[in-house]
């Protein structure tokens, strides 16, 4: 490691110690905005602050939710047909 190397963990720890980042407030904002961002067609990612990405909110794809039983759905099909 060169003499000019920086310790990223130290930097992060110092920043956390300042308590400049209010994680509770971020959590509250995510809880409020998450549902609408999750269903929004665009943008594909949400960011706040400046053009730099501080917080990534990823939409997790629906995993493991299968199509329902086809025969059970056929009752709904009759309703759809009016």
């Amino acid at each position, binding site marked *: 490691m060169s003499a000019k190397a920086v310790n990223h963990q130290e930097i992060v720890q110092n920043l956390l110690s300042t308590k400049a980042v209010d994680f509770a407030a971020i959590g509250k904002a995510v809880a409020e905005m998450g549902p609408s961002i999750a269903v929004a067609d665009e943008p594909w990612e949400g960011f706040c602050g400046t053009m730099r990405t501080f917080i990534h909110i990823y939409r997790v794809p629906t995993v493991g939710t299968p199509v*329902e*039983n086809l025969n059970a*759905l*056929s009752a*709904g*099909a009759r309703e759809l*047909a009016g």
Partner: protein
Amino acid sequence: MLWDNEDLERRLCHALDIAKRAVEQLAATGYTDPEANQDRIRPEKVISETAVLLVAASTAASRDGVKARIQHVACLLMPHARSQRILLALCLEPALALDYATAHICLARLGYPDAAFDALLRQALQSQAHRGRERVPHRMLEQHWLMHALSGSWNSRTSAVMRSSVLNCPMDLVGGSRDDVYAFTHAIMYATDFNIHPRRLPRPRAAILAEAEAALARCLDEQDYDLGGEVLLAWPLTGVSWSPPSAFGFRVLARVEDQAGFLPAPSTRIERLTQLHGGDRSNYLVATAYHTIYVMGLLCAAALQPGRTPPCNIPSRFAVPGSAGRLLEILDADGHTAHWREQFDQLRLPERDALAGFLMNVGLRRAITRRDFDGVARLLRTGHGLGLTGTPAASQTAEMLNRLARLPNIVPVQ
């Protein structure tokens, strides 16, 4: 023997009948599930998608039943497509003008113009900010498609946009997400203009469809019929021939539609449906089901075009006898099952063997998802012996194994 055109027409008419209900029930206010606010559908989405379905269906408008339904739904859609809400959006968000005007543009193309709306739209498109939204290539292609529909001619830069899209470079078939497949299917729809005024594709059809086959295998095995139907559009929208996997895919979707009464998506949940009554139940059903039903409508409209009809049977001229059985031995070991398997078991032996490439794609996808790299290598060896590895999915998988093989030289094995 080709698929019965009367049957295709019946399926398309079903989609148009649901479009009527979607407009009546959702076009004014969209849909929000009171128990799950995140399950929200904006009215603009329903309005735009219905209009796109009508344009695609117009290629089959020589059939009286289709024509009458298009006219009826178009008349229902017009006040929503040009509502005060949309007009105001054109004024306030010119960068999204074409997005908001999608239904208006489609309706005008179908013979339902509106000069006043058109004038405001063109004013928005001349504003300084109208290009102020950054878009990914398939969304840029959508803008070009809409401008082409508005002006009657393709933009000189459309070819460059197509070259920057996934149509011009191999899709990531190993690590790609559902969004990547979505980008592919939409690029195909816009570039081909549903075969009304198609553009020349930036790569040979065979290269594009070889990747589509891998995406189709993934969709069928995950029972993702929404995306699977869109992937299937790639065949009738780009040429006349249907490969064995695409013919099989169409057959699977048709049988699933027959059994459920509509082509379903996971969004329609029986438990939630039983909790609802009256109008709430009806709105939930239409809101969660309409999109996949539209996809089946798009597919049948394309399949009704001259020379684009899928075969009833799986083309088996190049089948390697016994190849399907060899691969099924490997696939069946994981216990996974899907609707396609019921259809597969009903095929004649040569038809099954003709789908060995499909089975190979399914097997590779499953093994990669499980991170079972020994299983991946075993499949590639078996496939190589059967002459099935000359595909983009197999070669991309082999590249992945080569990268992984390099890892122990970099990261010590724990």
